[in-house]
């Protein structure tokens, strides 16, 4: 379990990192927190010839609020999401989610940029990006691109990032009054990747949802912003309506099979999460129908 030999370059600026990536192309890999890349290299699942370490780039650090937008540098650590008061105020969903990402030692190194670039379909943060309506800011040979989270994730470990691109920042709309969030995942051990999870962001209006965004993860080859949510927005929710939305969700999802769960189990758990989410956000225990139709 030793990585194949590789060359190492420590980027001195974003521009320098982009130059290095331009020169080496597919043979290079960006090294951020290393919590996904290094295990993969040690298992010889990947064998990049050059590592471009962006760990030193102060430009990629920091969480700032600019008007209605929260901007997070790509090097923001998972641990920062748990600590930052700006996150608590502007995007509390991220803090709730980060608590489920791996373990403290990994959260101290792993970065949000790395997590989004890695695009593991069972990862928490990509689904949060969908729920929060994030914009991913990418620098590449052609300059800056701003990509909506919904378009960013394209498949298992696949994104709109080309080998020469660097993910530099994430922008989120700041949470407004009346917004609420829900996060829950099912994992057999705390810190594991989820079997199924849900990151949800809502706008409440009285006893209804003005808006409801359901970011599901570990339900297929990429995170899913469930369309079934539209059935619930603006309506008075009854168990029957919820069951209808659950059925729509079942149809919409196309989950994979793995050692933890069959597609049927994933669909079932996704429905359970929907009921828990709606019951919790509306404070309506009667809606916690446990995935039943």
């Amino acid at each position: 379990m030793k990585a194949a030999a590789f060359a190492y370059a420590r980027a001195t600026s974003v521009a320098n990192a982009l130059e290095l990536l331009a020169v080496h192309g597919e043979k290079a890999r960006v090294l951020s927190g290393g919590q996904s890349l290094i295990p993969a290299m040690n298992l010889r699942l990947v064998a990049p010839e050059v590592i471009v370490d962006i760990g030193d780039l102060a430009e990629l650090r920091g969480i700032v609020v600019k008007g209605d937008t929260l901007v997070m540098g790509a090097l923001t650590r998972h641990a920062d999401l748990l600590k930052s008061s700006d996150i608590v105020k502007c995007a509390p969903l991220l803090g709730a989610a980060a608590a489920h990402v791996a373990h403290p030692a990994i959260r101290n190194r792993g970065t949000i940029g790395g997590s989004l670039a890695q695009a593991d379909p069972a990862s928490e943060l990509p689904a949060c990006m969908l729920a929060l309506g994030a914009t991913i800011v990418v620098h590449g040979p052609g300059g800056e691109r701003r990509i909506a989270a919904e378009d960013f994730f394209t498949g298992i470990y696949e994104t709109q990032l080309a080998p020469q691109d660097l993910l530099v920042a994430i922008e989120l709309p700041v949470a407004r009054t009346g917004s609420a969030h829900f996060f829950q995942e099912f994992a057999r051990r705390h810190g594991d990747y989820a079997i199924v999870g849900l990151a949800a962001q809502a706008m409440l209006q009285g006893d209804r949802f003005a808006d409801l965004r359901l970011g599901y993860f570990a339900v297929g080859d990429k995170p899913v912003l469930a369309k079934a949510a539209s059935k619930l927005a603006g309506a008075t929710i009854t168990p029957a309506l919820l069951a209808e939305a659950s059925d729509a969700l079942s149809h919409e999802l196309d989950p994979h099979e793995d050692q933890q769960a069959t597609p049927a189990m994933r669909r079932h758990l996704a429905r359970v999460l929907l009921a828990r989410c709606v019951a919790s956000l509306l404070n309506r225990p009667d809606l916690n129908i446990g995935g039943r139709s």
Partner: protein
Amino acid sequence: MSSIRSNPQRLSVLDRPNSYIGKTVPRPNLDRLLQGRGSYVSDMELPRMAHVVFLRSPYAHAEIVSIDAAAARRMPGVIAVVTGKELADVITPWIGVLSHLKGLKSAPQSAIAVDRVCWQGEAVAAIVATSRAAAEDAVEHVGVEYRELEAVTDMRTALDPATPVIHASLGDNLAFERILDAGAVDQAFAGSDAVVEAEFIFGRHTGVTLEPRSVVADWDAAEARLTIYQGTQAPHMVQNIAALHLGLREAQVRVVCKDVGGSFGIKVHIYADEMATYALAKLLRRPIKFVADRVESFNTDIHARDHRCKGKIGVQRDGTITAFEIDDLTGIGPYSMYPRTSAIEANQVVNLVGGPYTTKNYRARARVVFQNKNVMCQYRAVGHPIACSVTEGLVDLAAMKIGMDPVEIRRRNLIADDAYPCASPSGLRFEQLSHHASLAKIVEMMNYEALRAEQAALRKQGIHRGIGIASFIEVTNPSAAFYGVGGAKISSQDGVAVRLDAQGSVICQTSITEQGQGSQSLTAQIVGSVLGVSMDRVRVILGDTDMTPYGGGTWASRGAGIGGEAALQATKILRKNILDVAAVILQSTPAELDIIDNAVVNVSDGARRIELDELARIVYFRPDTLPPGIQPEPMATRHYVPRDYPFAFTNGVQAAWVEVDTDTGFVKLLKHWVVEDCGTIINPQLVDEQIRGGVVQGLGAALFEKCVYDDRGQLTNANMADYLVPMSGEMPDIDVGHVVSPTRESELGAKGAGEAGTAGAAAAVANAVNDALKPFGTMITEIPLTPQVILSALGRI
């Protein structure tokens, strides 16, 4: 802690002033390990040392058509690429059988596969290079052509005529079969008010050690001696086997076992890759290091369990259990492991089922079959979790059938505490067990009645909690009955030498080993207590065949009971020898003197007469001042093996309190209790932590751990992300209580405690989950109890 038998006379040598027995004292090796000064095999660097990496078969069953190593040999840093055929010139193959396991058969196994591979992960070639990384680079350039053969993977069809026979010379895939029929089982079932049957399924799992298997083998051609540095539980066994297959005398092999990062039975066997490493050192005449990486650990460290056991129980309306019957099937991989064999687990299952109960009617069949999967063998609590889960699952089923409380049915059937000595239907002899005292104690610890009330109240709110109880017996302190009688050169006796050094401290050499369970501590506690010196004056040396007496090592919960007794007896002699000299120096008699707190004192008034350092000074440097004819003996050696009973059985009971989320199938472990009886407790903290660690491994089996094979014999979760080792976040608090019935066989009275936790934990959890699911009319008899299994059973998916 409560004692059901007191025997003050027998405890006298241990009950001395300042005794460490029964006290929680910190382990002497703690600071060293915590300050990072532990010395593990992977830390070792020797001059000219090379690293071996094994090219492992990607197929479960295949012919090796050709191996082309030319390109690999040219890679930077590569010293040699060695195939199985080439290595066969240096080391002979072996067959893992024992004569007392009648009919057990296996095929010759080589250090590196020759012509054919029989499981995915079997070594095909050794690549030796200047570093592990260089060797891994070269592995990718060895070209092996395989012809894939049909793999035998399902144990249920392994004996079908249509299934290929893995080893043609053996005739079939049956490694071992045992049949037992005691009492009058058919009659008992016929006369029962109810008979209940179930099939219990146990996932194949493994013991994941923090430190992987590691070896440095160093052949000294000048001395014609091989030194093996290895994290092993049985150094003398390794010495014997290495010598035997390398054509050496035992005196030419030294095995050194320094710190070991966990073993759990994984490191008590002889592995092909370790044998290959010894042989490579001899062949290449230089030190060779092998440290398994995590993926090869999963593919080659022995697996365990993987049983399918049909069970049947008869019961009367008054709760009397009338009979047990089982039919057990287990698949052990392509070879019976060497030298302890892979028939022991099934054999134990036959031995142990029904063991805590009075019924004499018991019928069993166990079949052990070959498969093209990794080898299976003894792992912590060998056979016990299977036997306990089957027995206790059946007892709960019987209770449910007749509508009796699970505690009550056990009360009515457990062997009475005053019925000993007695024997089980399978012939196990029990000296003194304490099932009823243990059950009473656990009921009190968990506040059983209150818990039942809480369960009922929560049930009304749709919260489904369950209580599970599991009584068990545990094999400890094995005599030669385990391996020796079957022809294996595995010592059941242990030896201890103690000597007074020139400043009045004590050096103790023992043949038991330390893998973290506290062998060093318990030895020092016994020596310090019996001699009358403080523990900081006792240095314990273990794990070196050149430096310690001959003995078995640490496995089968034997270290404290056997090695501890040897330490006690050796120290008694040393004490006598010291008092003899003291009496001469002090012109007194030995009877008037005692050793307390590092000094010889008067028995009468406790006055300090001579410090041990002063006595040692005279003994070593001024013997001329002693009267003529006085020759002090400042060193004593004693060996010990139990003779009266083949095994010192212990017993206990576990209870689990769980909550099942019936929407998701997730089980939350809320609390776990254990009461066990290991006889004399030398260090309560060490015993409690052995129990807790054992429980956690049992909980792993219950909920998390499983080696998942596909139908082509590929292990599909050979990594720490997909193979779920239990972690602290999911573990409940574990309360441990004790009942103390010392064995009369030894003066120490200690039985083993290392496996009790693992023996009953899964059974308690499975019973608790079924108790929680009672209103749903489901009964699950499969572990691990994954959300998928539970949701399926509930019909939710």
